[in-house]
């Protein structure tokens, strides 16, 4: 199914021609027009759906269509993630927009028959767990209805392995537009949009671009950080799997703005599907003349290469990442100098996260004012979150900044399964914190989350119910941080070990109140003295659980019991605790 772009694209009008050719099909998918007599079945090929058997389903659908001689009337198309991972495999039939979920291989016959008869297959429709109604169209499902898809604009709508489909959705148009402008104008637009780093820390993106553009070294580099290491986060992976070209286009625009000719994507080797799609996308873009020398006939040249990460959480920290790209041990170094001044091989380097870059084409195409009109005072645009844990609708969502945690968890997420009660939501991974029920009305906004005692982080939201013990969760994160600490600085290497020992004593009911005091003091010391972000934020899970769930700590220490019944000494199936040694697969 890979589309070969035969010739180099040399102008905007050429892009327009491709768009004209391929848009009708996509318009039909978006319900904007009727492609006469033609149906399309979009089958999700994201990691989630693939593992629940979407590949076999797609093959079977193709076979059925062939067998019935319907190849001209029904097209089977592979797409990226729709976001509703729990209900995979997902298939959507256009132009009707019928949303089918948990479609198995043996359902293919009925699905095709339904298209031929013009009747949806009721048993494959989504069933609302609360009202038991069966909405037919994707938009009628609350999970989708409440979202604002900007970064995920193409995920689930286009075939990520066909550059023409991306171009038909105005892809590479933003790049074509910027090639005629002074670089400073592009930087000003990104600054005016208010876009901030989506890797979690929220540094103003335009400011970072400006610093790199003004740095004196040559050559300069653009690096895309796709080392999504936070446990519980899969936004970047889904963007790369569902719309890889948007990231490449963002990188090329960044390259033009800062004066770089070479970009690198640093991506985890554990994401084979994402690596494969990205490699394909790079090949197609090169063939089409959208990467490489003299892009779109201009004198701007820019190319992208992939570098594989090899399973070290610390490599998400930019200085460690740059070392790892250079093929060394991924150990961080003190900043300044920041990568903008001296990064890869000592040259000025712009490091942006996947989601940040995927925002860039949208900012350029729609204008900074439009972008700045979305979101809150200090946090503009939208944010992609991955919803996981104890929640009805697990999956990938995108909402405007300023949406409250309550709307996300109880609206889009459909609340807590099994009649259990909400206890906490963890944001920001091992660097973040746990927020209790009274903080559910916190809007997602960099500053508001920080004030509440957590961080925006990269966007993993993990919901916990009454069966989770917060001390155990803190211990879980410290196991992770201690295991992933690179060992270069003492506060992190030794400090996290000591924190972990205390937490193990608490969860074994062998700790004293004195231990609790040491736990807190040491947490602050490690935050202040560690070399990089990993150590500086490692104690956060402890501090936030102490802030909101102190009675749970005290129950473990004073009463020798675990209120949630998780920790040793309490009966829980398979509740044996052990040292968690995280390794990486493959």
């Amino acid at each position, binding site marked *: 199914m890979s589309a070969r772009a035969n010739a180099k694209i040399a102008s905007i009008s050429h892009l327009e021609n491709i768009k004209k050719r391929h848009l009708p099909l996509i318009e039909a998918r978006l319900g904007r027009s009727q492609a006469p007599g033609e149906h399309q079945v979009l089958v999700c090929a994201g990691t989630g759906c693939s593992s629940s058997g979407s590949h076999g389903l797609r093959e079977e659908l193709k076979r059925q269509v062939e067998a019935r001689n319907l190849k001209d009337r029904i097209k089977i198309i592979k797409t990226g993630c729709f976001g509703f991972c729990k209900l995979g495999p997902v298939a959507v039939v256009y132009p009707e927009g019928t949303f089918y979920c948990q479609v198995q291989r043996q359902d293919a016959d009925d699905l095709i028959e339904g298209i031929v008869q013009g009747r949806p297959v009721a048993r494959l429709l989504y069933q609302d767990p609360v009202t038991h109604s069966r909405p037919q169209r994707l938009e009628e499902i609350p999970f989708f209805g409440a979202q604002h898809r900007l970064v995920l604009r193409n995920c689930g709508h286009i075939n990520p392995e066909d550059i023409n489909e991306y171009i038909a959705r105005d892809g590479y148009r933003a790049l074509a537009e910027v090639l005629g402008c002074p670089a400073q104008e592009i930087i000003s637009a990104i600054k005016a949009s208010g876009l901030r780093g989506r890797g979690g820390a929220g540094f103003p993106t335009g400011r970072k671009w400006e610093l790199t553009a003004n740095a004196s070294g040559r050559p300069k580099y653009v690096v895309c950080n796709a080392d999504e290491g936070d*446990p519980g986060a899969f936004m970047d992976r889904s963007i790369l799997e569902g719309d890889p070209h948007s990231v490449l286009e963002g990188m090329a625009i960044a390259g033009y703005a800062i004066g770089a000719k070479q970009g690198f994507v640093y991506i985890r080797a554990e994401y084979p599907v994402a690596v494969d799609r990205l490699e394909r996308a790079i090949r197609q873009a090169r063939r089409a003349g959208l990467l490489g020398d003299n892009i779109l006939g201009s004198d701007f040249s820019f190319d992208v290469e992939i570098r594989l990460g090899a399973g070290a959480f610390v490599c998400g920290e930019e200085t460690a990442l740059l070392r790892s790209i250079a093929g060394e041990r991924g150990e961080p170094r003190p900043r300044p100098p920041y990568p903008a001044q001296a990064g890869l091989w000592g040259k000025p380097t712009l490091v942006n996260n996947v989601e940040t870059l995927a925002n860039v084409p949208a900012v350029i195409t729609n204008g900074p004012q439009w972008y700045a009109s979305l979101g809150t005072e200090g946090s503009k645009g939208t944010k992609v979150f991955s919803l996981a844990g104890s929640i009805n609708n697990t999956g990938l969502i995108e909402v405007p900044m300023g949406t409250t945690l309550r709307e996300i968890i109880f609206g889009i997420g459909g609340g807590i399964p099994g009649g259990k009660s909400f206890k906490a939501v963890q944001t920001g991974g091992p660097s973040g914190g746990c927020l209790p029920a009274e903080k559910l009305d916190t809007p997602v906004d960099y500053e508001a989350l920080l004030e509440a005692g957590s961080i925006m982080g990269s966007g993993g939201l993990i919901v916990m119910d009454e069966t989770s013990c917060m001390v155990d969760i803190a211990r879980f994160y410290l196991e992770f941080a201690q295991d992933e600490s690179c060992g270069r600085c003492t506060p992190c290497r030794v400090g996290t070990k000591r924190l972990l020992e205390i937490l193990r004593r608490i969860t074994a009911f062998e700790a004293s109140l004195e231990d609790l005091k040491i736990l807190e003091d040491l947490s602050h010391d490690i935050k202040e003295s560690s070399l990089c972000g990993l150590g500086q934020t490692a104690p956060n899970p402890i501090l936030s659980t102490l802030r909101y769930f102190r009675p749970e700590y005290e129950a473990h220490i004073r009463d020798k019991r675990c209120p949630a019944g998780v920790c040793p000494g309490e009966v829980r199936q398979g509740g044996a*605790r052990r040292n968690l040694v995280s390794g990486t697969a493959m």
Partner: protein
Amino acid sequence: MPLLGNYARLDRIINAYARQPGQLIRILHQAQEIFGYLPPEVQAYLAAKLNIPLAEIAGVVSFYSLFDTEPKGQFTISVCLGTACYVKGGDEVFEAFKRELGLDDDDTTPDRTFTLRSTRCRGACGLAPVVAVNDDIFGQVEPDKVGAILSHYRKLITQTETETEPTHERESKRQDRQYQPPREYQEAPPSPH
């Protein structure tokens, strides 16, 4: 079946990447794909070929969890213990595998069939708890499903030519990869010069 010997295949990789700066990790990754793991002789061979001190190569190999210096089983079972999987009981699934296989974390069965390990998040949290066997991903695994997963792969070993349903997008090239246990490891590294 690869027609080339392992070191000849490795030479191809070296020729493809050695001239680009910073490709050591990719070369090591590909070397591990060829040999199944990175024994000292392969590291030494690379050090000589790439003109990089062996200490530096060993330092990189030991830093990243992707690299193994011990031979692995034909099937590596990776039980995700990321937050979402942990909250959903991934640790109980891990315990079940340990019991069924009689293995500890990062151990391999004596017949080199299975290697068991816990892993960081694989980014399929919507399906927690997640287990991966080589490149095949299983979602929403309960401890009582563990036996079924193991017998599926045990069947694969007993059948020489099997039609497996790929549960993964990419055709799993691992199926026909040659894992060479050291005892049968006949090929001595050629001289790097």
